[in-house]
């Protein structure tokens, strides 16, 4: 292949690779009772306004490496504002704060072993105990 063409295509390949690496996906345990969640419920769960998906009580978790993108896209809050919100939830006893994970391995292991937990990732979902949660509008 023409080297000039390769050089010209390189930035596009890099962008494509980065986009794939940063593809945000919702995940839950393979044992969970649901496989789909709507965007309003997802947002309300992370705002502490709801605790159920359908009739099932759920637990939410945060993943440090993807938190910024997730909050911006689905919760529409900045990290600081999100943290303040959960301070209010926790210190009034309204709700338990989401656990926050710093490594993909710990996150995947926790969700895989815990039924009805919702989390998110930007890495390939390569753990057999997990399933990707479909987002409906």
């Amino acid at each position, binding site marked *: 292949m023409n080297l000039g063409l390769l050089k010209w295509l390189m930035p596009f390949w890099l962008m494509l690779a980065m986009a794939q690496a940063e593809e945000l996906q919702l995940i839950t345990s393979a044992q969970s009772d649901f496989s789909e969640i709507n965007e309003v419920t997802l947002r309300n769960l992370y705002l502490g306004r709801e605790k159920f998906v359908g009739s099932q009580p759920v637990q939410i978790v945060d993943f440090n490496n993807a938190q910024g993108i997730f909050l911006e896209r689905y919760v529409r809050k900045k990290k600081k504002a999100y943290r*303040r919100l959960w*301070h209010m939830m926790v*210190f009034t006893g309204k709700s338990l704060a989401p*656990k926050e994970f710093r490594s993909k391995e710990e996150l995947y292991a926790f969700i895989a072993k815990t039924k009805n937990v919702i989390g998110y990732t930007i890495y390939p979902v390569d753990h057999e105990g997990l399933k990707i949660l479909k987002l409906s509008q």
Partner: protein
Amino acid sequence: MSFSSSVLAIEVGDFDLNVSLSQTYLHTSQNEFLIQKSDEGTLEWTEGVVNTIKRFDRLQIGAQLLVRDFGDEGNYRVDLDWGYVDYALRDEIGIRLGRMRLPYGLGNEFRDVDAGRMEILMPQVFNPEDFRAAAAGYQGVGLYGTLSSRKLGSLEYHLFYGNNTIHDDFFMVRDARSLLNSPGTSMTTRGMGGGQLSWNTPFEGLKFAYTHLRYEGYFDVEFTHPILGVVRDDRGLQLNIKWNVLSLEYVNEPWSVSFEYSHRDNDSVYGNTLGAVFGTRDYDDSATVSYYATLRRQLNDRLGMYLSHGEVYGNIADDGTTLADQLKETSLGLRFDLKNNVILKSQLSQMRGYRGVISGTGSNWLMFTSRMTWVF
């Protein structure tokens, strides 16, 4: 003990402990306000809370202990701030038993959560700090839930009934004892109930709320009359107070604005003995109106500032005549997040009036407050 992977907590064994400690400095230019010797500057305002919450499927239990020193109140007594058993059937309906936070307007449930808001003090015309001991929570039963709709947003409700414990160091009891020279005077809550509806509208960030609260309580009064000698009247002063509160909040980061309006109906009477002594059963048949607006701006990741103005008018007679403006407050303040868990705040307020003043005659004065909070 180790730091948990949780957003906020310290992990101790199977428990996540959430801890907040704050130290406040209060300095007023003339009057003693809220705390004795505030006109000389005082550090007698320290608060610490520790809580833990556990969730088992639909069941949630939690408790928070509060240690507070607020001038003559608290003196580091350890109180159960909240502690409850909660069972949620679905998002639409849940029930709580125990001691819970009292929903009143936008801020009362969060009044001690310094890390959660920009301001040091909530507007003193609306959520006076000296009322905290009576207004922070209730013991009883609460029904709550959230009804969500994609098109209409979400509607949260909280209905409650119960009572609360008024300690003898509550400022109204201290004032009554001092006024009547009667160490035997005490205050009891007979019942408090009401509800709050909050509508998170589909218009992003816009929220409306309505709160109704009814309070019934009484003072057991004992004092020495110049002619009759020692007079004791159990339920000598009976309080019957209703509040209706309208709230609006709009958040469009980095801006947010809040506006609240409260109308309080007082219908308080003397008991039989005191009524006979004073020649009337009427103690207070008036209304109190208060409102405030606060504008906040997060300037960068660490620094935020706010501007607030509020007014409270009391003793409004049935014919609408305003007899006294109790307090007008204009505040400007800053919040600086030194670290993720260390917050510094300062606030300067211009105050006009006497609501909350312990002693002093200045009608136009300044208040400076500064606070440091650690939160885990």
